[in-house]
């Protein structure tokens, strides 16, 4: 597995897109810090970008890599190697290389601008951890879609739809249900609804560290109590881990039955 991981990883590291992605974050980090010079504020802006863009890039990269390396994968499958190892190797290869682009791309400018001396270091590391999780989650989800769909175009379509659903439509439905069921106590509902979507969960995790913790008022008491404590942090981290494990598990299930 390690060999395949290494191969996928190097393959991606050599590819132009990884560089583009890395340079994009690098420039973004520098520009943000150059423009406002305040690490704390830059973290907020970055959050907006990370929670939208990381899933999108993860999804597209995952689907693209699967379809592009299909022939090579088939070649590998002809060898006496465990299927699971091939696909896990590829999966980890993509996720790790994307995460590396993210962490290095943002880490370098922030380090240069004196992150270590600033109080924002905890928020920033949380941001990177959440970004890494989002990478792993969305690559796994897109691999699921690609494995289940033979048709490239359809696969792409579903993957983008999945991203669109989790990033935008889910929140729309969430907001509408909040407005419609205004007369009922909604704090538990909104807590659970947030937990069920990795993008929302990441957003809330970062926001509670940054700006809305007090804005939430009486509703927020529930949120703050939950996410503010070590227990809440633990639960939300484990939910993020579940969001990685379950799609990965499904990939393996799918592999057992799939006829290549």
């Amino acid at each position, binding site marked *: 597995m390690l060999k395949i991981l290494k191969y996928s990883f190097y393959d991606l590291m050599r590819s132009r897109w990884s560089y583009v992605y890395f340079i994009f974050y690098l420039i973004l980090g520098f520009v943000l810090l150059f423009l406002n010079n305040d690490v704390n*504020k830059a973290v907020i802006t970055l*959050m*907006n970008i990370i*929670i*939208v863009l990381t899933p999108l890039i993860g999804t597209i990269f995952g689907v693209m890599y699967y379809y592009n390396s299909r022939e090579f994968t088939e070649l590998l499958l002809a060898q006496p190697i465990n299927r699971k190892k091939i696909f896990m190797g590829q999966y980890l290869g993509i996720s790790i290389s994307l995460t590396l682009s993210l962490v290095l791309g943002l880490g370098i400018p922030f380090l240069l601008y004196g992150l270590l001396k600033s109080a924002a270091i905890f928020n920033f590391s949380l941001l990177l951890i959440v970004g890494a999780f989002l990478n792993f989650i969305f690559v796994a989800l897109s691999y699921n879609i690609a494995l289940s769909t033979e048709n490239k175009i359809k696969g792409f379509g579903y993957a983008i739809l999945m991203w669109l659903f989790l*990033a*935008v*439509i889910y*929140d*729309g439905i*969430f*907001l509408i249900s*909040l*407005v419609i069921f*205004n007369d009922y106590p*909604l*704090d538990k509902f*909104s807590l659970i609804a*947030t937990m069920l979507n990795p993008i*929302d969960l990441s*957003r*809330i995790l970062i*926001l509670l560290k940054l*700006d*809305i913790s*007090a*804005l*939430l*008022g*009486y*509703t*927020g*008491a529930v*949120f703050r109590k939950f996410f503010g404590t070590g227990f809440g942090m633990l639960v939300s981290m484990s939910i993020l881990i579940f969001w990685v494990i379950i799609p990965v598990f499904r990939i393996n299930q799918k592999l057992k039955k799939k006829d290549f």
Partner: protein
Amino acid sequence: MHTKILLFFLFITFTISAKQIEVCSNCTIKTIKEAIEIAEDGDEIYLKKGIYKENNIIINKSISLIGEEGAVIDGEDAGGIIIFEADNFTIRNLKIINVGMSYTIDYAAIKVIKATNFTIEDCILENVFFGLLIEKSKKGIIRNNSISGTRKSEASSGNGIHIWDGSEMEVYNNELYGLRDGIYFEFVKKSVVFENTSRENIRYGLHFMFSNNNIYHHNIFRNNGAGVAVMFSKFITMHNNIFELNWGSASYGLLLKEIYDAEIYDNLFQENTIGINGEGCTRINYTNNTFLRNGWAIKIAGACYTNIFVNNDFMHNSLDLSYNTKIHDNKFDNNYWSEYTGYDLDNDGIGDVPYRPVKLFSYVVNQTPEALVLLRSLFVDIINFSEKVSPVFTPDNLMDSNPLMKKNNDSI
């Protein structure tokens, strides 16, 4: 003329007959109460270094009570400590500690009843229930004091400087913390409050009720339970104050309730849950204030008419303005909004496209507070954008037609 003559005679009698009575553990007079017994109008009681365990000291003579460095009056949590019922007195340089707590009686370190012309200065009041409780008095100067309490709940704590029914008071350069309200004014007229620091109080840093024609400026209100409240008052001027870190689920920098004809200028509102919360405020001018990184910069509830916001800086607030009615009679003009995305083609410093400070999302949050969990979600950005392009829910005349391209205050 009569008063002048009277004052002159008073002055004469003061200078001629005033004597100093020293109090200490090995003087002839050992307690403050004894000293007061023998004192006459105009005398000075000088407390030498030492701890005086006395309480309920009632003074009804126009005297000065002055402490040496290290003179401490310890009330031993038994009740009120000094009660002044006289005109023309001075209290200086005393340290008063441990005022008793009661749910029925307002015990205070220094209580002043029906006094005119008095000065309370350089005192340190610690572990108090009420610090200074001033009733039906006028022309008092309260300065350079430090007042602090250690109580935990609103019901079991008192106010630092509590003035009930007074006029022409000057309260300045005091430090107040750990109390219920730092400064509380009820039925107080024509008074000034300046250069005070009021912090970490359980309820308000400053609280005005039914107090007209007052000015407060250059004060710092930091990290109080609920911020500063100005209620049911007219003609209040507030300027150059700093309201910061009033951060909590029911906190605000400044709460305005039933306020008429106020001037609010050159203040800084920084990192409060709500910068200014207005309910029933009319004819108020907000000029040159800075709202920095608040949750809501301004939250306007019903019945606010003719509020004019000019030349303010709104910077990096989660939500700039929240508005719960469609009727709109307030004016926003020439403000700087950090979220403004318009352009300035003619380069005159004023944006060519109007700015709409109320976003659809803040409207939704007003209806359904729970929706705030969706803050900064992509969906919310999309609906905000569509509302910006064509306003449906938010009042369409609520806008800043001349938003500035650069902020007014460079200090931050």
